[in-house]
């Protein structure tokens, strides 16, 4: 029994442990916090739902587009209305067959470590991307990219395997074709496993970063272009939407910006208080319902049309999104290139819907609520992302609306990955789907309509004119003739509309709310770009 | 005739299979031999920790000894098949010290006494009822107590119910394991009287396990004294207990409290001190 001798020491030891742990905590805390009440008046704080990630320009999760776009820059930039403008590349020429692009780089562009932007560096970046082609196959230009040839220090040639008109648009995206400085590359040049340093040419430099807490960006003093007004941007990581609003209300945040970063209700609340400025962007993408034509019941155009006519889109969009989204009649909103004026809207018409169903042979037994055909009830399943409150609310609304025309809708909230898996496997009746927005659309959207592997082409495969449609898509993407392209797009979009394999629901918009001392806020044209270059703060 | 014979029982607990330390295997019983004649009562005496209760369990067939035999009615208790053991149980019953823990608190007196009857005698409801009533009367309770729950009885009354249950199958022998020790004096005496009467009436044999010499003396025909897992001495004439020079017996006798102030016990027996000090 040594209890007597040991116990005092034991207790002391325990107490010491506790003290150490605690003091370790407080040390940690001393190293500064990032609050909106920063000493610098020319600084703002914004929130973002997830950690900004490792700032690697060539990979996806968990890196965040918004911060990648602050540091790294593209060769060309995407501007309002789909116009492609010079950025790091000053000018370019395209060969006759559309397979060779020769770029001239801007002179005097420097990376933040002082090195210059040269064709060699550009090639290095492209090579790193091409080394992991599999990961980037979603981006059209990568699939057709053959090689990069250095011509001289500031001139290089991009060679494609086939003509592909949206190559420039694709080069404007935030990742993976933005330029990392020489110093950022690991020895073997393969950036997929990580970079050594976040060296870019962008207007912002990462100054301070704490995983899951915040990241502070400072203005790049040597920026080649027009310097931003702001000196400092702090991005705080706040995963919960409600907490974000509360922090904004309290003044800990200057800006809430993004898609789905606040609930619609909270956004409206902020708007109605009048103490803050709120705004909505132009449509960035379309919320669409993907209808699986290979599903037995939905292979009938009449059923698809009945569903399309069978719900009050206007009321649903307004009710659920409180007017923050706009009812969509076409899959492509008018602010995108090649959007068609003459797409005929499918209007809300319950009687029409009912008659389509009657015509398809789905009859309502007297006393029954669900239509039947050959003793089978008209039951459909809608899958949706369970974490998305809007999808959920819409699913629930549709459930109620379609019941009125005798269609029973089962709704299944899934995790995103499961939703995508089932979409790819064609294992669904109805599914929420979004197009990609600027600068990816409209070419990316029609690409997945024709190209297998994304679940969309597969879902459309039961259309009678499917092969024709695919041919049109291929033609449009390779075409170098502007009017021809316009024509083809018109035909494709009209077919999709008439066949009701996409049911457009609403145009999604970005939201922003900011404290009144922020001036001159503008939404970037590129959906994934950051908005900080134009912001200024009043004294 | 010999009803029960215990031959050379050796048993121990704590044969620990612990990986960490080899525990000393403490023998609880070593080389115990005893016999009980039909219709007699053997008082088994000893201080606490002497191994009395373990021996009781061994005899009842509840704890297989590591060595030795228990022969009841000519049959080895631990060598018989399940069926014969079941039959053996009929004739060998038990009453424990703590009357409260010996009955299921959720059953009525009737159900408690009915349990052995259900298991052995397939009686009709009426017959069973009558049997229970008569048993209750035999032990000095009334048939109106049938529907009562254990908590409605006093300790003495409950012990009577335990006796009634033990009697239900008309056994040959009952092991009384400190059956009266926790009752107050007056009740103790009445229960002892009841046991005497029943013994005469049914020709029962008892193994009366106790630490109280007086109680053992008053009911037993013969006495055996246990000490540290062994039989110190067996007395067929129980009066000889008081004159024995066997140290364990002597110390037990020496530490008796007087039954009258006239016989005050003058000094603590030194023998006892040696024997029992830890």
């Amino acid at each position, binding site marked *: 029994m040594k209890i007597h001798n040991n116990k005092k020491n034991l207790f002391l030891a325990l107490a010491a442990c506790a003290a150490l742990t605690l003091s370790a905590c407080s040390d940690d805390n001393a190293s500064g916090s990032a609050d909106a009440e920063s000493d610098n008046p020319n600084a703002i704080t914004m929130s973002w739902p997830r950690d900004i990630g490792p700032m690697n320009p060539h990979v996806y999760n968990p890196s965040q587009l918004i911060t990648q776009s602050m540091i790294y820059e593209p060769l060309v930039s995407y501007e309002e209305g789909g116009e492609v403008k010079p950025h790091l590349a000053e000018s370019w020429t395209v060969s006759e067959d559309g397979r060779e692009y020769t770029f001239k780089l801007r002179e005097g562009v420097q990376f933040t470590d002082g090195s210059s932007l040269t064709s060699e560096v550009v090639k290095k970046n492209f090579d790193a991307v091409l080394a992991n082609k599999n990961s980037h196959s979603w981006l059209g230009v990568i699939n057709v990219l053959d090689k990069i040839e250095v011509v001289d220090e500031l001139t290089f040639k991009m060679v494609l395997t086939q003509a592909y008109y949206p190559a420039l648009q694709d080069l404007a995206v935030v990742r993976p074709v933005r330029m990392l400085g020489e110093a950022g590359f690991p020895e073997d040049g393969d950036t997929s496993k990580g970079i050594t340093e976040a060296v870019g040419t962008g207007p912002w430099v990462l100054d301070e970063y704490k995983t899951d807490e915040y990241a502070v960006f400072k203005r790049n003093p040597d920026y080649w272009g027009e310097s931003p007004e702001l000196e400092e941007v702090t991005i705080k990581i706040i995963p919960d939407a409600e907490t974000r609003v509360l922090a904004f209300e309290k003044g800990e945040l200057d800006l809430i910006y993004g898609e789905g970063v606040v609930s619609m209700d909270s956004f409206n609340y902020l708007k109605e208080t009048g103490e803050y400025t709120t705004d909505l962007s132009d449509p960035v993408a379309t919320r669409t319902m993907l209808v699986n034509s290979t599903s037995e019941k939905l292979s009938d155009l009449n059923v698809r049309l009945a569903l399309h006519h069978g719900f009050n889109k206007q*009321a*649903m969009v307004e009710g659920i999104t409180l007017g923050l989204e706009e009812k969509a009649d076409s899959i492509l909103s008018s602010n995108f290139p090649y959007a068609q004026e003459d797409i005929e809207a499918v209007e809300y018409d319950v009687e029409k819907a009912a008659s389509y169903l009657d015509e398809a042979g789905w009859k309502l037994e007297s006393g029954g609520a669900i239509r039947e055909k050959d003793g089978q009830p008209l039951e459909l399943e809608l899958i949706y992302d369970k974490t998305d409150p809007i999808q959920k609310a819409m699913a629930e609304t549709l459930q109620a609306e379609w019941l009125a025309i005798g269609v029973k809708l089962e709704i299944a909230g899934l995790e995103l990955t499961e939703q995508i898996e089932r979409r790819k496997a064609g294992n669904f009746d109805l599914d929420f789907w979004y197009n990609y927005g600027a600068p990816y659309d409209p070419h990316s959207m029609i690409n997945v309509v024709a190209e297998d592997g994304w679940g969309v082409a597969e879902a459309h495969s039961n259309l009678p004119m499917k092969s024709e449609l695919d041919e049109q898509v291929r033609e449009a993407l390779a075409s170098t003739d502007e009017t021809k392209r316009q024509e083809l797009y018109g035909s494709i979009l009209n077919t999709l509309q008439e066949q009701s394999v996409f049911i457009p629901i609403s145009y999604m918009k970005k939201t922003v709310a900011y404290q009144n001392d922020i001036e001159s806020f503008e939404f970037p044209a590129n959906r994934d770009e950051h908005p900080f270059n134009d912001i200024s703060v009043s004294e | 005739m010999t009803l029960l014979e215990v031959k050379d029982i050796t048993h121990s607990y704590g044969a620990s299979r612990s990986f960490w330390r080899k525990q000393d295997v403490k023998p609880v019983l070593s080389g115990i031999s005893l016999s009980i004649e039909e219709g007699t009562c053997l008082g088994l005496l000893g201080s606490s920790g002497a191994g009395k209760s373990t021996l009781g369990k061994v005899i009842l067939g509840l704890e297989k000894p590591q060595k030795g035999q228990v022969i009841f009615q000519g049959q080895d208790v631990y060598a018989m098949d399940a069926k014969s053991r079941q039959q053996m149980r009929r004739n060998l019953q038990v009453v424990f010290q703590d009357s409260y823990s010996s009955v299921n608190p*959720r059953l009525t007196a009737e159900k408690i006494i009915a349990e052995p009857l259900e298991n052995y005698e397939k009686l009709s409801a009426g017959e069973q009822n009558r049997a229970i009533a008569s048993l209750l009367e035999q032990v000095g309770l009334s048939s109106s107590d049938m529907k009562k729950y254990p908590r409605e009885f006093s300790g003495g009354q409950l012990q009577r119910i335990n006796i009634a249950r033990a009697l239900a199958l008309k056994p040959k022998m009952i092991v009384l394991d400190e059956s009266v020790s926790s009752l107050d004096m007056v009740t103790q005496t009445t229960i002892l009287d009841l046991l005497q009467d029943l013994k005469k009436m049914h020709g029962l044999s008892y193994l009366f396990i106790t630490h109280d010499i007086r109680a053992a003396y008053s009911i037993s025909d013969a006495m055996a004294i246990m000490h540290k897992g062994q039989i110190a001495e067996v007395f067929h004439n129980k009066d000889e207990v008081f004159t024995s020079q066997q140290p364990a017996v002597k110390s037990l006798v020496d530490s008796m409290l007087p039954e009258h102030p006239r016989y005050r016990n003058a000094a603590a027996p030194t023998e006892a001190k040696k024997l029992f000090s830890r």
Partner: protein
Amino acid sequence: MARIRTALKGKWPFAICSGILVVFFLVSILAPWIAPNDPIQVNLALKLMPPSLEYPLGTDQLGRCNLSRLLYGARVSLGFATLIFVASLGIGLVVGTLSGYRGGWIDALLMRFCDGVMAFPNLVLVLGIVGLLGPGLWQVVVALMMVQWVYYARMIRGMVVSMKEQNFITAARISGSSNWKIIRRHLVPNVLPPIMVMGTLEMGWAIMDISALSFLGLGIQPPTPEWGAMIHEGTSFMRSNPELMLYPGLMILFVVISFNVIGESLSEQFGVKRRY
């Protein structure tokens, strides 16, 4: 019953809480008949309405009847908590009794398994199971069950082992009762009441756990009304319509408090010690 009656004497909190629970259980059974509206009927024209005759507690952000959703929510919370309790108690009873009564290697094996499961902080294991099986109410229920039964088994085994040593079990054996009869007649009836008391306390936790998991998005699937999920949806309306958050919060509060008060009084009555 008699004990419950004496327990009631002079204990008004106990009486009130039993009343609340009885009401909630009735509500959850009768929800389809007493709810004024269909709880999942979306009517965007009627969103966020103040209380009216048709919608006694107003409507939520999708124009669904708040009262009806709360009533149906009782179904989910109480129903699944009861299910978890009954199922895990059932498994625990079988395993615990077998283990405690038989002893030997079966006991060792089963109890080592229980030890292993208990080596995990229980809710964390639930999260792990849900994480691997995928979020969803049934996964949550199965996970909670898988984690809970171990505790019941452990406790029941302990009680069986100590009870096995009690004289009345020995007496029953000596009276010639078979093992099955001893288990059925003596062990189970004595083991069950204290475990049920523990269960009342656990029910409260189960309801909290289900709603917490729903809050994290791991539990209930819409449009099924569940209190935790309703609170989560209601947080967006904290300022304009605080009742959307308040009502389901109060429901949880009432039910859990009731379970706790009742469990506490019963365990005092039965002398059951709380595990934690």
